[in-house]
């Protein structure tokens, strides 16, 4: 059954991602909101509700209730709800539109992580999985364990292991390459496979500096409306055709399978069903590459590659990279904004930047980084995760 009352995105705005030590957190979301509202030609009074996400802004920035702070900023007294991830905020907004509660909603995401640089890894780890934290886990360690478990399970050895390691490096290189055309990206510079490998050597680990997304400040805002309202505001609305989320145990070691994320697989299957689309329809893909391993595993969890084979596909495609993955003869433009690795990863805003990218690409407004597809771009998919695969959100976006 396809979705009734398809929610539509009519405008999107975001800040540059990176370190914004000079700015208050509210300045960032204000900047994103101003860009989005200008694009949709909306005024504050047109907003009927706000769904805002931040992973841990009250911890990093010693803030009170975010809703009150937003009310002061916008002089709005409408319903406002705060969630931890953009995917979650958007889910709530979509459900509200579909229920007919509102027809114009501001969906925003904000994070300001660099203000707590010295303690942030402890915070991140404690929120991600307290028992693992107590046993000494770091935000990077679970990615390494997942990689080792994956290698073991699929018995990847020798030359293949070398290819897998290279493929992971190539993911990072590809994302950095894409980000060179993204003026909002945290890192707009190319890197090489050698740099990625050297960083691992320096760290004496299977994953190094260039395998992980950075600590980032930033904000992103969407204007979400009903299908009817969208027609009045724009002639190029992007519809949310399907969305789904799933949850899993907080403690990663306790999950049945340590080599992939159940949440991604579950959410994708449901999202495709509600969107009445198939995998083959997806041309644009924004993955949640908190690490290169996460991007690799996600390709399998979403169904684009068979289990234990994504590294082969990636390696084959990246040896002579054309700007997209060629999978079974079809183009798949992946992480066109540079991914979390190069665009940046301001947790609560990250999903917003992912949706922003698909929105711009589907509208043909991505400028220099516009995907040059063989066929007309119609469908995009976004995967956002929370914790270490504790929650997963999948959005299928499309235009008529």
């Amino acid at each position, binding site marked *: 059954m396809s979705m009734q009352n398809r929610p539509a995105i009519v405008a999107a705005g975001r800040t540059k991602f990176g370190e914004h030590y000079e700015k208050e957190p509210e300045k960032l979301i204000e900047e994103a909101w101003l860009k989005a509202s200008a694009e949709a030609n909306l005024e504050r009074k047109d907003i009927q509700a706000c769904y805002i996400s931040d992973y841990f802004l009250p911890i990093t920035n010693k803030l009170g209730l975010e809703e009150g702070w937003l009310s002061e900023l916008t002089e709005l007294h409408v319903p406002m709800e705060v969630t931890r991830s953009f995917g979650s905020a958007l889910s709530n907004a979509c459900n509200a539109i579909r229920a007919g509660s509102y027809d114009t909603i501001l969906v925003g995401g904000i994070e300001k992580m660099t203000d707590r640089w010295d303690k942030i890894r402890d915070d991140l780890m404690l929120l991600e999985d307290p028992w693992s934290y107590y046993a*000494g886990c770091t935000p990077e360690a679970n990615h390494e364990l997942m990689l080792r*478990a994956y290698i073991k399970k699929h018995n990847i050895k020798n030359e293949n292991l070398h290819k897998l390691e290279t493929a992971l490096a190539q993911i990072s290189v590809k994302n950095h390459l894409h980000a060179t055309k993204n003026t909002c990206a945290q890192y707009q510079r190319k890197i090489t496979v050698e740099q990625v490998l050297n960083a691992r050597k320096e760290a004496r680990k299977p994953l190094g500096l260039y395998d992980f997304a950075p600590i980032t400040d930033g904000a992103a805002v969407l204007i979400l409306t009903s299908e009817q309202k969208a027609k009045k505001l724009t002639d190029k609305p992007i519809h949310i055709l399907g969305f789904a989320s799933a949850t899993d145990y907080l403690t990663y*070691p*306790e999950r049945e399978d*340590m080599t992939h994320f159940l949440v991604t697989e579950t959410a994708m299957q449901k999202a495709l069903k509600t969107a009445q689309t198939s995998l083959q329809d997806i041309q644009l893909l924004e993955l949640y590459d908190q690490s290169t391993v996460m991007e690799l595993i996600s390709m399998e969890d979403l169904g684009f590659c068979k289990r234990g084979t994504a590294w082969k596909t990636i390696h084959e495609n990246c040896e002579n990279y054309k700007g997209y993955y060629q999978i079974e003869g079809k183009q798949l433009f992946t992480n066109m904004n540079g991914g979390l690795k190069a665009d940046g990863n301001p947790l609560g805003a990250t999903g917003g930047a992912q949706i922003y990218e698909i929105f711009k690409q589907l509208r043909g407004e991505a400028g220099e980084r516009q995907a040059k597809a063989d066929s007309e771009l119609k469908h995009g998919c976004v995967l956002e995760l929370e914790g270490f695969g504790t929650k997963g959100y999948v959005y299928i976006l499309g235009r008529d």
Partner: protein
Amino acid sequence: MSSEPIERRVSYLGDRLRGSRCQICGKEYFEIRDYCGKCGRKSFGKMDESDLFFEKGKLEVSTLINEPTNKFIKLGNFVYGIVSFHDGKIRVPGRLTDRMIKDNDTVDLSTFEEREVVPRFRRRYSVSASDVIPTISLTFTFADEYYPHQEYKKVKPSKDYDAPGIVGYGVYSSRFRIKEGNLERAVPFIDEDSITAAVEAGKLALIHSSIDTTLVGKIYVGSESNPYAVKPIASKVAQVLKLGEEDEDVQGIDAIDTEFACKAASSMFKDAASLVNYPESGVNHAMVIGTDNSQAAPRNSPGGELDLFVGYGAAAFIFGKQDVIAEIEGWYSCTSDTPDFWRRDGESFPSHGGRFTGDPAYFKHVRKASSKIMEKLNLKPCDVTYFVAHQPNMQFPIRIAKELGFKEEQYQPSLQVAKFGNTYSGCSPVGLAAILDIAKPNERILITSYGSGAGSDAYSLITTNQLLDKRSRQKLTVKYQAENPFLEYVDYTTYRRLKLGM
């Protein structure tokens, strides 16, 4: 800043690795659950309590942590991974401990994976000096190294005794040593302290005695290096080892810490024995632990002479009247107010009276207690098979043993100070354990402790036939720990750092 209620809950589960198992589908959980997630409501009341404390696991995957989170920085580099128990039915996160990894060391993780590991009770991470000390047993060591896995099996007692005595014992010392001249001394790993050693020794004593832990009615822990000025070690030992009948999350046992310099534990032997011998007490077994991360000021500063001798370790003894391995024949204690060694409240290290610690202190009290008990029991030195004296250094116990008329073969086997250093409250008890490890049935052991301040307790023990029956249950003997091929030797700077802890 920490939260005490959170600390209580985390350590309640994490120290013992408490879990649950569904009677219907067999799913296991690392946490206490009232029902099974898979079976739902029908599993209410059908969850078995379980814990992994005495089990062995398998390290499934691991990774090197060389950029730890802030609270783990003092650990340096370490290996972290995922440990499975019960053929993978239950998995937990875990840190490998007792392993020093230098920045340039290459760590081949493939040699770690699939290996059996044993949970170890340790400090969890660093906190500020005023906080509650967090502990956990999600720390592991390999079963094929220093610390083998040993099953804890409850065995129904087969024999009653008229006199109370020792029914089991355990000695724990660390994997690390400092060697200076002929003297080797045990050094705690950075996540160890007198609390963790007490728990380890108690655990080993339970394994050795095979008693039912619910029948332990009293626990005494003697120490002079409790990291808390106020807060007992005994309560931690009682909870982690589940001593006494557990009701909700409270153990049905009396737990108390004692302090009298190096005789804090030995003094309680008679109290434990008397208690189990008093029918109305309802106490079947009483446990006494002497534990110390022996303190000493750095060398070349006041009190720094002690730094040449201090060790680390604990010894636990369980007293009872069933399946006794050594009966108590008699005792004698003496006390005088002799200020030979002390530590003022708030001071990090003890001070001592130099020359004064010898004749008016150690020798006077050990001599008095030893000769008085021999007089009381009408014993001559030749009636005693082994003599154990408190051993703050190599010279003192030998001098007093000779003076009392004992021959080398009578006192030499108990001398462990050259292997572990002076383990303060654990010192003469470790000597006693070394004897129990090798003694034959029907031999007499005379042990005389000494505690500065000052006093001595002398005991005469007679070994029984059951000593031999129980011996095979304990792999971690004193000799095993003294001569283990996996011992790691550290330099002076590392020794001071490790001793200071997290």
